[in-house]
């Protein structure tokens, strides 16, 4: 979020040098990142830092959509163009599809979106329903949250739940109660954007707990280290939720680096930055997880006059140290 920032420098922590040597060779998943808002430089940086797979929940694009077609095109881009774009940079792209809470408040449009969702949720690349839940915690948000929980239950796919910025603890508890009321298995629900105030309730109820490392407005990664030290690594995952705001697409590898430097065990770091996300979103149902051991070749059969044009599956890189463009 760009607005209402409280940038108190004293609370921004002591800077540490960016050093990925300690995480060299590790693999990461960012289970919440909005790549449609990010640049190709970000994709290259993610790849270089070891992020093998990203999950992009459908979200609010910064201003309200006013017609069904823009929702349709957005969902299409998540399973189409963005997925392809990611592959060009060696990154496997999955998404969750859903009606976000803010736009649930436009009831007539939201009703139309609900009719369209069943066309998308079974597509290749779609892991589940998300991100859905509460923002202002209005009756309409609740109506469409419930409707989408039913859709997920019927399709037997995971749900990625956004928890509100305001009145967070109550909103988080309510989100879980409603999910249980609809008979969802907590092990198929990821409650996202947790804090020190919500983590215990989420874990105690058997839900997955997502933590968004996002400067100024959500979690800082020093706090995240303390949480993993206190609660362990089971059922916890970190993400960047990087979007059009001041956010950091490298939040997951940076947090892994910090955890290792501060004494968190390697196996725990791997859980919260890699394997828990794969398990929670049941990625094994979509791809052979063994392929994550290999660099993604965007199109192994792509040949130009007999010569593979994408070296290592990657787009060619520009030389950033040169002013020559050719």
């Amino acid at each position, binding site marked *: 979020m760009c607005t209402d920032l409280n940038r108190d420098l004293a609370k921004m922590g002591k800077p540490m040098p960016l050093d990925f040597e300690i995480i060299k060779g590790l693999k990461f998943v960012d289970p919440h990142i909005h790549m449609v808002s990010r640049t190709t430089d970000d994709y290259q940086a993610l790849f270089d830092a070891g992020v093998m797979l990203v999950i992009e929940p459908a979200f609010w694009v910064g201003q309200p959509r006013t017609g069904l077609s823009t929702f349709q095109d957005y969902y299409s881009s998540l399973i189409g163009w963005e997925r392809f774009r990611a592959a060009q940079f060696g990154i496997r792209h999955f998404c969750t599809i859903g009606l976000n809470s803010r736009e649930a408040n436009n009831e007539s449009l939201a009703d139309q979106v609900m009719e369209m969702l069943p066309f*998308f949720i079974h*597509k*290749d690349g779609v892991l589940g329903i998300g991100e859905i839940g509460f923002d202002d915690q209005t009756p309409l948000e609740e109506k469409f949250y419930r409707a989408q929980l039913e859709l997920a239950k019927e399709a037997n796919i995971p749900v990625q739940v956004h928890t509100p910025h305001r009145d967070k603890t109550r909103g988080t508890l309510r989100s879980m109660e409603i999910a249980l009321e609809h008979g969802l298995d907590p092990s198929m629900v990821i409650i996202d954007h947790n804090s020190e105030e919500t983590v215990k309730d989420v874990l105690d109820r058997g839900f997955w707990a997502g933590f968004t490392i996002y400067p100024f407005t959500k979690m800082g990664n020093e706090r995240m280290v303390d949480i993993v030290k206190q609660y362990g690594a089971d059922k916890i995952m970190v993400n960047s939720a990087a979007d059009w705001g001041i956010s950091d697409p490298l939040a997951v590898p940076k947090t892994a680096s910090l955890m290792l430097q501060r004494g968190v065990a390697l196996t725990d770091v791997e859980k919260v930055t890699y394997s828990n996300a794969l398990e929670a979103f049941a990625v094994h149902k*979509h791809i052979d997880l063994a392929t994550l051991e290999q660099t993604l070749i965007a199109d192994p059969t792509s040949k130009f006059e*007999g010569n593979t044009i994408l070296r290592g599956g990657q787009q060619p890189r520009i030389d950033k140290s040169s002013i020559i463009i050719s």
Partner: protein
Amino acid sequence: MRYQEIKNEVLAAVTADESKYLQDCFDKINTSYSTNFVPVFSTLNRNLSVATRAKTIMFKDDDLIINDWEITQVIRVLFVYAINEDNPDIYYAFVDRLFVYSSIEELSALYASLNILEFPEKWQARCAEGIRNNIENVQKAVMLDNKYPANYLDQAAWNQLVLKSFFTQKNVLHIYGLFDRNNQHLAESIVDYIYERHSAKRNIHPILWLLAKNSLPERALNILCESMETTTDRIVQSILFHVMLVNNDKLKLSINLESLSNKLEIMPFSEEVLDAYKNGKLCVQI
């Protein structure tokens, strides 16, 4: 389309359980495509094992060029073929909506199906739209090993397909009808492209010369001779030399082409040369 034979080929390539599952899918589409097609079409991948999905199919068919297609693409094309609807408007609306709501894999399969869709003349605009698509596999499904564009596209759309295939670095010899539908308009656009590549000091695709060989102005012929001097691959030399021979009367060369041919041991231009080029058997990278 040899539907049953292709279907048998596919069913033989999957496990017994998958074969049963797929047969059930076909039955569902036959029973009611309007209610059953979308769920069957969209959930295909998650109902086949990773090992099965890695398989490819080759099949000689009159309507389709099934050249190492992923098995899922072949299955999806078979599903589309199984849609049974006599009313053109209902059929068009249903299939067109499949395009609108498709994933990358589905879209590729739908474009690969163009030549076996009912009411073929209705799909010209959709095919032209597919050529504008920017996703590699979707482009390939429309442009390569697909008989629909050559059979049904008008000249303007056809020329866009050919030009875009060069711009996007496709293996252009997989374009069905590439030489049969060659035309003067296309040749002129290709000459413009050759000039642009030459000015930018970038490689010039040898097949461009073949398509424009009867329309080369003096400037282009000079570039052709320059390319011949710098090319070391024998297959490319053979192609360029063939174009030089076609233009022999216009070339003001001080050297004799036949003696140049002997000196360089240039292979005679033939179908085999094109096949070698198509299959990537270049001696060196150009």
